[in-house]
């Protein structure tokens, strides 16, 4: 059986789903962040597969931009987490309820 575009899309969907359930189920902010990265990577797999099988360049260039934006996002997000930890001494999401009530 030849690997076509569908197999890559299945893999992308599975990766995205794993990341999504990680975001839903984990309580540690750092792990939630890793799962967000996983979801971004899953979308890049789909884009590169589309680009390869359609023989166009645009998907690859989009992935290029996604990589850049993800790097910026990680830097800012981790700085926010560190600032949060400095204030609250915890990064567990269930204890970060300052906006409740």
């Amino acid at each position, binding site marked *: *059986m*030849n*690997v*076509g*575009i*569908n197999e*890559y*899309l299945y*893999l992308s*969907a599975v*990766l995205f789903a*794993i990341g*999504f*359930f*990680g975001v*839903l*189920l984990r*309580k*540690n902010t*750092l*792990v939630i962040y*890793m799962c967000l*990265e*996983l979801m971004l*990577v899953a979308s890049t797999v789909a884009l*590169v597969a589309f*680009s*390869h*099988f*359609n*023989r*166009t*360049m*645009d998907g*690859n*260039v989009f*992935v*290029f*931009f996604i*990589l*850049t*934006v*993800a*790097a*910026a*996002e*990680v*830097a*800012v997000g*981790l*700085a*926010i987490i*560190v*600032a949060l*930890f400095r*204030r609250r*001494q915890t*990064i*567990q999401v*269930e204890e970060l309820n300052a906006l409740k009530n």
Partner: protein
Amino acid sequence: MSPDIFFYLFSALTAGSALAVVLCKNTVASALSLLVSLVGVAALFILLDAFLLAALMVFVYAGAVVALFLFIVMLIDTYGGVRKPFKKATIVASGLGLALLVTGLATLAQRGSIATPEFAGTTAPLVPVGASLRAYGEQLFTTYLLPVQIVGFLLLIAMLGVIVLSKKFEGLEDVK
């Protein structure tokens, strides 16, 4: 040997270590599983002839991002203490989400599959479009020139934001 077996090998590696990211209790183990997963994705990019993206994936993600994660894990205490059990609503919602996902994937597998585009009339050997650096350069400096500049500006803003966020401000009201 066909590259198909490599696809299955690397996709199993990627999905398995992605599962390990979610399931590991230890944050460091999660970060290292993320590293393995990203390397697997880079290998898949090589199978898709996107060599530059594979190299960038290893450099940017595996090199910088995971190292940053590990650094933050070292800085702060990620040990959560006693963890509360999940609420009933969370369990119901995630079960529902899983059911929806399985239904969607099963539907896609059963009736709708995207046909791999056929390029009739191209008898020439298949030229991988993402393999050449020249193609990236041409695209980035003609069609995507404005996004490149915006992304550069975004990186600058991110750098400034990180500096501001990690600076200690004296006399600020503490939110408790």
